[in-house]
Structure formats: C-alpha cells, structure tokens
C-alpha cells in the first residue's frame, strides 16, 4: 500500500457509507447509561446543565464566526477545532438538560428554539469581538481557564453524566487554554503594536470576568448535593493562571469595572447583553424559518 493513500478507502465503493459527514446526527447521548441520580432535584440539574451547555454553545458560535476570516490559515483551523470541541461538549450537556427536564426537548430544540431570556450562559461568551483577534484570544484565555478549573472539579460530580462529560472536557480545555496563553505571550511580548492590541483585547473582555465567580442559587444548591461547584471556589486558581500568563507576556491586568447586573440578575438568569440577540438571530434563523429541515 502506498504512502499517499492513507485516505484511499474513503473513496472506495459506496462513498456515502464511508463519509463521516454524509449522515445526519442523532442524539449525542444515545447509548449512554444516564439514569438520573435519585437524590438530585431534576429541574435544578436541568438548569445547571443548561448553564454549562450554553456557555460552550455560545462561545462555539462566536469562534465559528472566524471560519475563513482568521489572520492565518493555521489559526482558522485552530479556532474551528476549538469551536468543534465546545460544540461537542454543548451537545452532550444540552441533551442531558433535556433529559433531566423531562419535557421532551432534545439538544436541537434547546439550541434552536429557546428565546434569549431562556439562555443561561455568562456574558463573557456572548461578547462580540468582531474582527479583533486579540480580543477573541483574551475571551478564549479567560473562558478556558475558568472552565478548565471548573471541569477539573466537576469530574467528581455526583451526576455520573456530568462527571464523565467534564472528565473528557478537561483534556480538550487544557489545550484550548494553552493555545490562547501562547498567543497572549506572542502578542504581549511581540512588537509595541501587538502589545497594545493585546492590552486592548484584554480590556475589552475584563468587565465580564467578575460574573464567572458570582454564585447562582442553582449552583449553590447543587454544590451542596455534590453535583455542581460553587464558582467562587475557582477564583484563586483562575487568578493564579491568568497572572502567570500575563506576567510571562509582560502585561498587567486591565483596570476594568465589572459589567453592572440588572438588580443582581445576569447571564445565568437569562439577562443578556445586546450582542446576544444578534448572535441568536444568526444561529437560529434557519432552524426557525424551516422547522424540521434536514440536509
């Protein structure tokens, strides 16, 4: 067999049967043992899985917006790969949420048919960095650092499905964080101009950092049941990692006031920033215009 033919059999015989993307996707938790823990309030578990799933889904959508527009080809591929990992995490978590909720909504219904006020993601992931690559890298650094600290702990969750999703996610988030950190280093410790852009990128996302550590009622309740993690516990680890990256890059934390909440309510309660509506419009419009469409 020749060296050049690693993929030859993809094209042999019935092409469709060999093509990984030729068939439709089914539910992502198909075949997984997913009995609900009897000691847990299933409505709360559903809400918590939505928080974790929506964070990944919305950042995945943001990163996918770089597809074909990244500053270099390798980076285009990198951001798309990271977006795909997050989409995979989101599918598993939304499927779990739908199951715990017990109202017959699957991952697609939850992703495409909920309105803005029902999404429970933090503001950081919906932030629109436009074509500002340094801001996207800052967003990815903060998010992956936070989520890696969270998932490392959730790998011991009392919900076996959440625990398994988290344990798997840890491996992926570790290289997402490394990728973002290496870019912060390259840009921060690069030219005067790249340093200025990196600082501006960090300043753009820093107002969203505080919200990551503000515990929500659901998180606190489930943390007591051993299912969730109180996000306030993550703070010192996340701060430590961010400080390490920034100091290696010769940067300091931006001065930024946390974004105001609405009477204490923020993303976890379905209160979102202006950017969210535009994002959902783009993400949901085909599924809503053509209900049940397949391709």
């Amino acid at each position, binding site marked *: *067999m020749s*060296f050049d*033919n*690693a*993929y*030859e*059999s*993809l094209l042999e015989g019935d092409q469709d*049967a*060999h093509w*990984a*993307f030729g*068939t*439709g*996707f*089914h539910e992502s*938790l*198909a*075949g*997984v*043992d997913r009995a609900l823990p009897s000691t847990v309030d299933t409505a709360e578990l559903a809400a918590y899985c939505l928080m974790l799933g929506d964070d990944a889904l919305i950042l995945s959508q943001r990163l996918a917006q770089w597809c074909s527009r990244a500053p270099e080809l*390798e980076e285009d*591929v*990198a951001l*798309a*790969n*990271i977006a*795909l*990992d*997050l*989409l*995979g*995490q989101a*599918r*598993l978590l939304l499927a779990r949420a739908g199951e715990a909720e017990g109202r017959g909504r699957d991952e697609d219904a939850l992703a495409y048919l909920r309105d803005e006020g029902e999404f429970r993601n933090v503001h950081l992931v919906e932030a629109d960095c436009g074509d500002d690559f340094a801001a996207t890298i800052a967003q990815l650094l903060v998010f992956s650092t936070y989520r*890696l*600290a969270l998932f*490392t702990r959730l790998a011991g969750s009392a919900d*076996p*499905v959440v*625990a*398994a*999703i988290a*344990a*798997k*996610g*840890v*491996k*992926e988030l*570790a*290289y997402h*964080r*490394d*990728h973002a*950190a*290496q870019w912060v280093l390259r840009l921060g410790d690069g030219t005067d101009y790249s340093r200025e852009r990196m600082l501006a990128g960090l300043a753009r996302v820093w107002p969203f950092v505080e919200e990551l550590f503000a515990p929500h009622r659901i998180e606190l309740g489930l943390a007591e049941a051993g299912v969730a993690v109180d996000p306030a516990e993550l703070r010192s*680890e996340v701060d430590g*990692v961010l400080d*390490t*990256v920034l100091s290696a890059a010769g940067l300091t934390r931006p001065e930024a006031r946390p974004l105001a909440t609405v009477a204490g309510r923020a993303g976890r309660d379905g209160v979102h920033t202006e950017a969210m509506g535009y994002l959902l419009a783009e993400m949901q419009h085909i599924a809503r215009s053509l209900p049940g469409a397949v391709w």
Partner: protein
Amino acid sequence: MGVLDEVREVAEQVADPELPVLTLADLGVLRDVAVRDGRVVVTITPTYSGCPAVEEMRADLRARLAEAGHHDVEVRTVLHPAWTTDWITDRGRRRLAEYGIAPPSRIGPRAAGPVPLNLTPPSRRVPCPRCGSPRTEELSHFGSTACKALRRCADCREPFEHLKEI
C-alpha cells in the same frame, strides 16, 4: 468458533471512518463486545466530545454485523473513562506510521489536581514517518481533524500529520 468470537472479530475489523487505515479496535474506541440473549451488544467510546465520526461508527458497526448475519445489534456509548491515545494498539501505531501519520507517544494517566499550563508547546520527540529523522517541528497544534497536529521534517522537508496525544 463461538458466536461471541465471531461477532468480536467482525466488530474489531470495522474501519475508523476518518482514519480508515485503523480499525475501531486499533484506535481503542471499541470497549466491549458481548452477546446477551441473542442480542449483540457493542460498546464504543468517542475520541473527542465533538467527534462527528461517532454516528458513522455506529452505522458501520450495524452494517458490518448485519452482513455477517447479526441483525439484533445494540451499539452502546460509554463516556467514562475518557478515551486516550494510549489506547491505540501497537498494531494501530505501526499502521499509522506506515501511512505517513506519526503515531502519538504514550502519556500515562493524568496526575490529580490542576492541569499544568504550557506557555510553550511541549517538546515531544516525534520522528518523521517518512525518513525517520528526529528533527521535526510542530507547525500547528490543530489539523484537518480534531485528533491531528501538523508538523514538518527539517531533513526531508516534508510536512506530515501527527496524531496528537490526549
């Protein structure tokens, strides 16, 4: 040969949809094959959370087992323990190298506690699958699929893919 041996042999020979030089057994995603009350139960685990090939693996397993006369088939997915490249068999590693994809090195189980940060890409010794030179460098940690990085050889100058450690 018993029914179990027979179905195991069929399941083990199913090719990975994205890396067809490997079988599902080589890749280490095939976790268990059993026959219970006449029903074939095959258990697989996904490589990455977002791996789009899982659906295809299910369909391929069903199709190959049906060809062998087994129609009552259940394909189960387990998420835990999470797949690691350490589960790729020696035969799988040889096949990858033979086809120009550098196989992963073995990484062992992850230590408990916080995951260490890498501010520089970890320097792994990944010999060139074409000329065997140890002088290779990573061009991009991300490649054509979630599981591969892109490298190049400083001696034969060829780019090549590396199934990255996870």
